[in-house]
């Protein structure tokens, strides 16, 4: 049985020198996988490369055993992979509901079931469905962004720093939601700065440095590893 997502030996970057130096990643359907590492380690770059947003020069990405290296974002969405960028992840002049509809642009048929599912997970979005997303708070926008991604009923959800800029209370809530999403059988791959909290809910974690894998283990083991703690978790 092949993994949900497997990326091996990725090399690539934004045109100039390679930022990714042989990165590899694996996610299973029942896992929350967290990528941590210092600034500039290539965490977000790795996510973008997997999702086809920048060119992979060498290496391979497989989804359920099928090669999807350098596929277009549109094809990724059709495969059931959803991606939430770190910043600017809502359509500010569109309403909450329209934002969600855009997430399901490629899906045929009635959207009401999908909408209900998202509204159940984020009841606040149901209340605010007619509000312009650009006028909402940071935490609410993050819900819109995740809701938009969930509209395709993804098999794999990729989140780039979902808690960046949120208050501690909202960070806790966001991680709770991510656990709920994962419990529905959706594999989660995320990059996080709040490494301690993220690793605490993670099935496995990768520690990236200068574009290559430094450590890989279960969340608790990484948290317990003194070297990792000193390097990236601030002691």
């Amino acid at each position: 049985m092949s993994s949900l997502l497997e990326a091996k030996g990725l090399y690539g970057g934004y045109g100039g020198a390679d930022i990714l130096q042989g990165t590899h990643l694996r996610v299973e359907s029942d896992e929350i996988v967290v990528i941590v590492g210092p600034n500039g380690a290539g965490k977000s770059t790795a996510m973008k490369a997997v999702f086809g947003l920048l060119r992979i020069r060498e290496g391979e990405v497989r989804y359920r055993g099928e090669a999807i290296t350098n596929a277009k974002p549109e094809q990724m969405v059709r495969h059931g992979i959803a991606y939430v960028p770190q910043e600017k992840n809502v359509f500010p002049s569109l309403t909450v509901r329209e934002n969600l509809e855009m997430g399901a642009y490629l899906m045929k048929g009635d959207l009401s079931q999908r909408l209900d599912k998202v509204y159940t997970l984020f009841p606040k979005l149901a209340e605010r469905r007619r509000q312009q997303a650009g006028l909402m708070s940071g935490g609410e926008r993050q819900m819109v962004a995740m809701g938009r991604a969930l509209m395709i009923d993804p098999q794999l959800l990729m989140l780039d720093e979902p808690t960046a800029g949120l208050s501690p209370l909202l960070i806790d809530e966001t991680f709770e939601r991510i656990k709920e999403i994962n419990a529905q059988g959706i594999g989660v791959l995320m990059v996080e700065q709040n490494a301690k909290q993220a690793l605490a809910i993670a099935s496995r974690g990768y520690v990236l440095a200068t574009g290559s894998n430094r450590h890989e283990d279960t969340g608790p083991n990484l948290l317990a590893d003194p070297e990792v703690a000193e390097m990236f978790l601030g002691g």
Partner: protein
Amino acid sequence: MTDILQLLIYGLVLGSVLTMGAIGVSMIFGILRFAHFAHGDFMTLGAYLGLSFISAFGLSSWWALPAAMVGMGVIAVFIDQVLYRRIRRTQPVILLIASFGMALILRSLVQLIWGSDNQTYASGIQFPWQLDWLGGMRLKPDHLWIMLISLALVAGVHLFLTRTRLGKAMRAMSDNMDLALVSGIPAERVIMVTWVIGGALAAAAGVFLGIDTRLHPVMGWTTLLPVFAAAILGGIGRPYGAIAGGMIIGVSMEMSTLLIPAAYKPAVAFAIMVGMLILRPQGIFKGTV
């Protein structure tokens, strides 16, 4: 007083023309991030397409409108596919230069095909209605139709942008191109529809202008400045702002004739635009840039 009401009518007619042009300019800017300098000549070509259609089939003037809109929608997509699409991946400013060149190509084509002389859709003078209850103000049926049809087209664009999947996707792309791609919105199809609508509305502007005045190869180019002024006033990249911008510019241009020579009408549009650029470059309503 009657004078002012009369000028207000002329202003709203001109405003309707400008709005039709400015919505397209604004949409194209929102999606493709460049000021489309051939838009005035889209108007011209549209007006002449309408002229050929009605003279070929011996129809009355208003039939020029649907024919021009359909024709120009198709031509706009064609021009995008043949030229703009090829240079879209370079800087947007290269598109700007290309559209400037396209403006001259279209104008010379119009001159080659239809000649340089003034032409009209229908000969003869249309008698205005005398509205005694409004102090004897005159209203030409054509003017009324121009305003009503513009209103209908604006309503149509509004419904398209807020009620249809493709229209919402267009607003989404204008808001955040990267996120639209990540969501799986097919950019090329949205761009194509943008050109269809932009081209069709430009053609409507051209036909209105032709019905109101006359057809001439530079009719669109000379209207381009007020059209841009309207788009900037409304906040470029904002189709709704373009409506307000079009009406304000149109009415101001006509009202200005009370104070300054009519030859300087375009200067009024220009002055409002420059004032806007200095004071509030993002437009009355916040634009997307």
